[in-house]
């Protein structure tokens, strides 16, 4: 897979492969792509020369790889050396040990599709938008709006305003009705905002901690949120709140997934 990809980024140069025999089909494949027989012969000869020089290096690479992958045999390093002048400890120090150079890893070279590098601002913005604080803020605002709408709607249905004990049949004035709608809407909005922010915050924290993204995150955070809300009214209410909210979250997750 790696060798195929190295070939695809440099279509007609022989790949730095440890198997020298693999260079031959590569040359034949490349020569089909050039135009003209003279050009083809020249390119073929050039590739042959490069392959021969690379074969020498490939032999030493294979030996280095064999030495690198066989650390538990102290005597095996000696006999597997082709040329006695290669000192593997020094090469390894420069390759994977302490003296290796600091490399800027570029996905275009490594093997990914070449994408333009993101600027620092863009990275910061994206990190901010993925953060738990931003998500809980979003849920808070969303909850506020939804709660407001729900409260206003409920005030229209279930009205209890303007009840005068002396005159129970009096219709309430418009100002009283509006005031009642505003109050209920605000109260529902605040509750929904708090619940939404808590749920989103705990779900994000739990998901970051677990490192997985599945339905259990919502269930755990539902339990935490319901428990926190119900805990104010006692321990049993907290447990009930945990169970109920967790079941509700599980149902929503089942529907969504």
């Amino acid at each position: 897979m790696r060798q195929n990809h190295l070939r695809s980024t440099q279509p007609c140069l022989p790949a730095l492969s440890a198997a020298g025999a693999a260079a031959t089909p590569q040359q034949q494949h490349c020569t089909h792509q050039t135009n003209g027989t003279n050009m083809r012969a020249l390119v073929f000869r050039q590739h042959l020369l490069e392959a021969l020089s690379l074969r020498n290096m490939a032999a030493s690479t294979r030996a280095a790889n064999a030495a690198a992958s066989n650390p538990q045999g102290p005597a095996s390093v000696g006999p597997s050396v082709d040329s006695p002048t290669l000192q593997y400890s020094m090469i390894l120090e420069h390759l994977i040990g302490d003296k290796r150079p600091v490399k800027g890893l570029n996905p275009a070279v490594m093997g990914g599709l070449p994408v333009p590098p993101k600027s620092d601002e863009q990275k910061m913005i994206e990190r901010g938008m993925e953060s738990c604080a931003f998500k809980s803020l979003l849920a808070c605002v969303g909850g506020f709006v939804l709660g407001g709408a729900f409260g206003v709607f409920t005030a229209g249905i279930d009205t209890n305003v303007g009840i005068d004990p002396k005159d129970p049949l009096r219709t309430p004035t418009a100002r009283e009705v509006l005031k009642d709608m505003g109050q209920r809407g605000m109260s529902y909005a605040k509750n929904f905002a708090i619940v939404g922010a808590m749920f989103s915050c705990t779900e994000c924290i739990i998901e970051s901690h677990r490192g997985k993204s599945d339905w259990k995150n919502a269930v755990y955070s539902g339990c935490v949120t319901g428990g926190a809300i119900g805990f104010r009214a006692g321990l049993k209410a907290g447990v009930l709140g945990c169970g109920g909210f967790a079941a509700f979250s599980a149902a929503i997750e089942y529907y969504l997934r």
Partner: protein
Amino acid sequence: MDPVKAQQLAAELEVEMMADMYNRMTNACHRKCVPPHYKEAELTKGESVCLDRCVAKYLDLHERLGRKLTELSVQDEEMMRKAAVGSG
């Protein structure tokens, strides 16, 4: 063998080594962190966190093993040299 030649040889080998390491790391972390449920195109928060951790662990492992390997390689060569001197 002088250090300059060793460094040059290491630089030539490094390209292939880094490409291989990157591919292996990508495969391993993809297998571990991204379950095959493609409901949405973007990486979720849990998957991003898992990938960060996977890459950090992989590179840490690579560094430690590389250091240990160079230590062992130095020890091997010392032993070889002693054996050569002793027999020669």
